[in-house]
């Protein structure tokens, strides 16, 4: 009987404390698209430059980057997995214009330190055929495993910039470059 009560108490406990926890920030990624050089292609196609910062701890949750399981992701562990990171991430980003889907061309990856930890930085180009009046961005990174993930989107155009937020409720954004 006592054991059952103890089990009940232990099983129920999370609720009481959980509400009082002010924890680390939840998961964010930062997606930047830059249309400053949109007219750079000779064919008249639209070209955007992209940068996508994704937290290593989020990537570790889905890809187990910490190969030896010691709690530290080292550069030696991250480097050979950059292909896997690209395969995973770009699956959840779709960009299209009025004439059809655009092509995302991964360029390279680096690392950056944000306030809440280290991020993989994915650089890429986006090529869309024709001169688009509008571009549609569909972002679903991590939504299936963590609906509280947010994609913080920055769009730069000329001297200006604006931000928007991707969430499971708003995974698609349309903009005019």
């Amino acid at each position, binding site marked *: 009987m006592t054991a059952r009560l103890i089990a009940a108490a232990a099983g*129920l406990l999370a609720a009481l*404390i*959980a509400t009082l926890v002010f924890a680390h*920030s939840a998961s964010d990624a930062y997606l930047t698209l830059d249309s400053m050089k949109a007219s750079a292609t000779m064919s008249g196609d639209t070209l955007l430059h992209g940068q996508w*910062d994704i937290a290593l701890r989020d990537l570790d949750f889905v890809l187990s980057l910490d190969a030896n399981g010691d709690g530290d992701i080292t550069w030696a562990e991250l480097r050979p997995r950059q292909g896997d990171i690209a395969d995973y991430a770009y699956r959840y980003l779709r960009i299209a214009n009025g004439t059809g889907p655009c092509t995302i061309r991964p360029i390279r990856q680096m*690392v950056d330190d944000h306030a809440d930890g280290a991020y993989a930085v994915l650089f890429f180009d986006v090529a869309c055929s024709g001169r688009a009046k509008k571009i549609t961005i569909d972002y679903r990174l991590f939504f299936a495993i963590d609906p509280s993930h947010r994609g913080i989107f920055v769009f730069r155009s000329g001297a200006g910039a604006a*931000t928007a937020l991707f969430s499971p409720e708003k995974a698609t954004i349309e903009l005019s470059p």
Partner: protein
Amino acid sequence: MDAISALRRASGRALLGAVLFAVVQAASALDSSMVSPPAPYRAPYLPTSDAEVLQQVPPASDAKVREMKTLRTALDKAPADLRTADLLARAYIGFGREVGDAHYAGYAEAVIAAWMTRQPPPVEAQVLQAVILQFRHQFADARALLEKALARDPRNAQAWLTLATLDMVQGRYPAARDDCAQVTRHGSYVLGIACVGNLRSYLGEARQSVVILTQIAGDAPRLSASFKAWVEGLLAEANERLGDWPQAEAHYRKSLEYTPHDNFLLVAYADFLLDRGRPQEVLTLLADYRQSDTAFLRIVLAQAALHSADLPRYVFLMAARFEALRARGSDYYGREQVRFALHLQHDPQSALELAQRNWEVQRAPWDLRIFLEAADAARKPQAASDVLAFLSQTKLQDPIIEPLAKRLRAELVTR
């Protein structure tokens, strides 16, 4: 020229369908000598050494990480098994609490998401979803879900316990007393008594609270470390109500022996140290927890108390974090925002407005205290009349709040 109008000018059209949030160059208004750029925080780089540690993550060797992995594998094999999903979601919530990481609430939410789309959802899923919403301070939504769950399953102890917590945080003490009784009836005697013990410390009965909680702490050697840490944390709080600082500190230290990374306990102990004029110890205590926004606020408060030359940089970073939270649509750091506005931005008027908004959401002793501090600093005692009435009604005892309330009441009379 702000960024959005610049964009409009550049494009000739506004962003279509985009939810506009913030202007990116928020930093430009600040003195350039102290600008630490918002995310990304430094230029992207390529590490130079294979051995360089880039990020710490929960080690796979940790028993709880292994348990989560095992449950995840089981759920992947049998995605329709509600019991496994329930266990995994609980494991995520428990681990997230223990290490102070909000990501795990999101993982738990994803696990139960499939069940939440059913009509009606299973009660277990509804209650867990309520726990997660409460974790994010979405109290009204959490309450609505709990009421639905309890209408279908009035014997659900988890739902009663979650509701008890919610009622205590929101200052609905008579309702909380009933909730605690239901926890005792349908769940566990020990937990129900702990629930009442906690409640009493808010009702001017901190002495009885200490007696009850001390007995539970002594009677419960076989309970889990997280349960013991919780009881020790409540004892620390009850002793603070009594102004028994040595006892309060002893219980904080004991609670942190059981769960050394518990974010709630760490910041509560840091607040205790700040109140005792020991900011240097706050820096030591929280050195490894800078990622936590709430811990970071205490670090900045400690830097202020030490008159650190770096203070402007810390204040800037804290402001950037609040901005990042706002950008992602999170608005559940009301208590922290009041303290930031009042003690670090020295803006009592804004602090009072934030305190008024926060008071509509939560009414724990800290919410009460910062409200009174803000009203006092803004020289608007009349703004605190409802809060002072709440204080009289609940009979909360607290050696820091009582003199403050007395002063505000005196000012109210003389005006």
